[in-house]
């Protein structure tokens, strides 16, 4: 089967570079799975699990934000935050989720900024936990 070049870059480093058979990710328009030969498309990342299928092996990462540029022979993701499954600390993610939930529930003294921060933190924690499953 055909393969395409997959490249994931973050502002700090090149996160992943290789040949893959298929890439699955979450976008603002919904979940997509993308094979080589796709029409040119740019999509915006929605926090979610990223799966890279490479020679029957699946590499999993938690992708938090960024966008992806899909071309027939390549797949570029510009990620602001992304981390491999084995870089995630499950305990920490769970604790962060609890903390964020609690902050959102105590509605009395929370301003917009704090709320959006807590929501982002919660979203991150959920994505991390999803990636570990």
């Amino acid at each position, binding site marked *: 089967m055909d393969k395409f070049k997959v490249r994931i*870059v*973050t*502002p*700090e*480093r*090149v996160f992943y570079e290789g040949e893959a058979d298929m890439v699955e990710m979450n*976008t*603002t*328009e919904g979940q997509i799975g993308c094979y080589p030969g796709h*029409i*040119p*498309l*740019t*999509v*915006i990342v929605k926090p979610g699990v990223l799966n890279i299928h490479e020679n029957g092996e699946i590499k999993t990462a938690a992708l938090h934000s*960024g*966008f992806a*540029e899909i*071309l027939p022979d390549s797949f*570029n993701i*510009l990620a*602001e935050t992304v981390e491999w499954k084995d870089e995630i600390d499950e305990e920490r993610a769970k604790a962060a989720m609890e903390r964020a939930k609690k902050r959102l529930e105590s509605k009395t003294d929370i301003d917009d900024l704090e709320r959006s921060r807590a929501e982002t933190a919660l979203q991150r924690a959920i994505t991390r936990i999803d990636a570990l499953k």
Partner: protein
Amino acid sequence: MASMRDIKRRRTSIQGTQQITKAMKLVSTVKLQRARSNAEKSHNYFDTMYRTVCSILARVGESDHRYLKGNNSGRKAIVVITSNRGLAGGYNSNVVKLITSDPRFSKDDLDIYTIGNKGYEAFHRHGYNIVRNLPDIIEAPTYTDAMGLTNILLKSYEEGEIGEIYMAYTFFKNTVTHVPTLTKLLPISSVDEDSDGEPDKIDAMMNFEPGDEEALDWIIPKYISGQIHGALIEALASENGARMQAMDNATSNAEDMINDLTLKYNRARQGSITQELTEIIAGSQALND
């Protein structure tokens, strides 16, 4: 002619200074290497981002989008990236000069955001309107810092307080060449002057999900964060490069001065020996007579 003791004291003091400049040079060499490898790593992200934004802009063409069109405010914001510490040659003053000597900018309609204390001090002295100074960022630039600053800038742009956003920093061309650069962040001019037409082939067929306008809304803030982050990293590399050069010059100047003083010292010593001898000989001759 200075006495032997004076020359000796002067030489010791210069030797002390030389040791300091030598150590500073070594430190900035190491920092430069780290900063340079960071700059290389972030280049990838920056290039891809730039290409994507160009391709979107090429597709959108003439648009009324708020980030492309600009607003009616006459005020301009400038992000100035300098260092917190001096002893880096002309590094800081070159960036500052870029703005103070530009006829497009007048003191009264500028909002200055400084990153780095040296820039803050210089603009403060010149009496510019400084909205914010963020000296901590330049110590270890992260993408999150760049994003925070972008949010502040975009907010005042959207509220109509400022109409244009510029950024002044030092581009790190290589270890010896650092170019003070002024770039315009917003509004983005729709057709880029230096696009060579090559990438447009793919761009023409690129699709965007969601639509072009939404994609702009979303991507342009990221693009600006990316630009600021890139500039911070370049500036850090340039700062250390400039400091390394300055300290290298200082060290070799000190070396020259030490050599010169050593020569003078030896001459003075020889002179005093000769004088003593002459005195003794003259004395003994006076006794014989």
